[in-house]
């Protein structure tokens, strides 16, 4: 079975993916990989592979459905293509957060009519308020977050449909 992951924003497809009990195997770029899980405690685990054992650590999933994975001195942000929540990132052309912040206020909820330049919501970051404004005349098609939610920088907060 083919399985698609998203690693650091890029799609990665692996073939012959099998995950049974304490083993994971797949092939990638013509190479076969076989791992077994030796132990696991909290975020840390020890894996066994033909080149030897190594330690890895995986964070809890963020609300965007992503996990930070550290193994072999390398680090990556991973999610499964099928599971990744559609919050933010995937939407092109939406209104993005200029930096991480907290949704402070929503002035134009879903379905509101807006004029270009009108403030749709306010993001609070570094103790300052940042207005997220409509990029065109139209209707607010979707707001991806609720008041009080923390959001990363560069994610889509809202979409306007003309």
């Amino acid at each position, binding site marked *: 079975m083919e399985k698609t*992951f998203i*690693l650091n924003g890029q799609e*990665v497809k*692996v073939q012959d993916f099998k*995950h049974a*009990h*304490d083993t*994971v195997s*797949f092939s*990638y*770029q013509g*190479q076969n*990989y076989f*791992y077994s*899980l*030796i*132990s*696991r*405690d*909290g*975020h*840390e*685990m020890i*894996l066994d*592979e033909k*080149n*030897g054992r*190594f*330690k*890895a*650590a*995986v*964070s*809890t999933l*963020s609300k965007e459905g992503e*996990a*930070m*994975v*550290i*193994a*072999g*001195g*390398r*680090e*990556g*942000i*991973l999610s*499964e293509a099928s599971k990744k929540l559609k919050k933010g990132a995937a939407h092109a052309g939406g209104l993005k957060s200029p*930096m*991480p*912040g*907290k949704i402070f206020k929503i002035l134009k909820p879903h379905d509101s009519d807006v004029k270009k330049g009108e403030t749709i919501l306010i993001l*609070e*970051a*570094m*103790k300052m308020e940042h207005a997220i404004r409509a990029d065109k005349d139209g209707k607010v098609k979707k707001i991806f977050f609720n008041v009080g939610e*923390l959001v*990363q*920088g*560069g994610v889509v907060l809202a979409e306007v449909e003309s």
Partner: protein
Amino acid sequence: MKIKKILVANRGEIALRVLKTAKEMGIKVATVYAEDDKNLPHALFADESYSLGMGALSETYLNKTKLVDVAKRCGADAIHPGYGFLSENEDFARMVEAAGITFIGPTPESIVLMGDKIGSKKALEKISIPLTPGYHGDDQTEETLMKEAKKIGYPVLIKASAGGGGKGMRIVHQDSELLESIRGAKSEGLKSFSSDKVLIEKYVLNPRHIEVQLMSDTHGNHLHFFERECSIQRRYQKVIEETPAPNMSQDLRLKICQTAVDIAKGINYRGAGTVEFIMAQDGHYYFMEMNTRLQVEHPVTEMVTGYDLVKCQIMVAQGDKLPIKQEEIKQKGQAIECRIYAEDPDNNFMPTIGKIDAIGVPTLRDVRLDCGFLDGTEVGVNYDPMLAKLIVWGEDRKLAITKTIQSLDEVLFLGVKTNRDYLKRILGHQDFIAGQTHTHFIPDHKAELEPVELKAHDLAGLIASYCFSQKKAAFKSGVEVSSNPWTTLTSFRN
């Protein structure tokens, strides 16, 4: 007078840093916290801790009245301001002293003097401190400007005095370019800023940021603790600092340190201070500014000299005479500090947020992690993105670099994207290893500091780890370990 209780008017790693020394000295410590910081260690590990409530910084860590009230209420006889926030605020220093509380810092007069960028230079000119040569005069005739430019010595920078963003700027290397450049800068200034007034300054090619740590007591002792090299910066924020500065002769080192001591003497300074210099590649240096507080990067100095600078600060504030002679202060080995920021260097240094599942513990000898967070705490959006400082000591610079790279693999900050990998790329860069540091290092080496692509094998390991983590411990032959995971997570495979 012996200080019995200190209120730390700060947060995060620096509040913990002060707490540590105070504990060693048997002094009680009270801390303060904004409500959104209530789970952070500076709010948890002091002898007592007081809420500053919620809201804007002006309501919490910058609220002078609240802070002085807390100090009075808890019976603190001294306030340590840390760095940032109110550490260089003369009104706060005055308010603290007026309340009969000792301010662990310089006099308000010193803060005022050094806070005034023009006034401080005028004062230092009088005691012959080298300043960046320049002409800022009103006589704008071509003859005068040319005469002044030649007096300063090439290369010089001519810029529109109302300018910005590189408009109306000219770098002049020789006589033949001078007149044309003056005219060019003037006409561009006139077009862009409706003023043809220009100023001329010495142009320093590939400057280094070199600073000197000072400590003065109230008995006329003005000591230096040698220099720090802080050229590796991104957007005027320091990223890596070290001491001793590489590629610097001992003569030059002693000369620049003596200049800094002359400043401390000249203004009758008190407490910890740092003089920042801009240094040309040929070793000429010019005064830039003086920071009248403890610096973020003070630990590298502590690692190579063996002195506790916070302890010195407290002793000075008590009125003690520092029991240290200048000739006893020596640099031993090399220390490097890396600032671990919650940011994505590969996406324009965008700040990041999230929950830190696990920080990790450095295990090598002579490695120190000054960190304001605990496992399970959140990195939010309201404060500086610096999470921690990794400080590493080695017998020599090469060993210190190697140890720093190794140690960065141990401090995971699992759950929050940090600049950890980026720091490794800088430390492994051949020019950094050769000590060829200057303040444009990061922009100049942008291409070489791009992330190294993951090998297929590494990528497969990440995917497998991810997959195991997504299944609830349902394996048969695995052994559940119940010890603290991070005591065992010391040898990540490389």
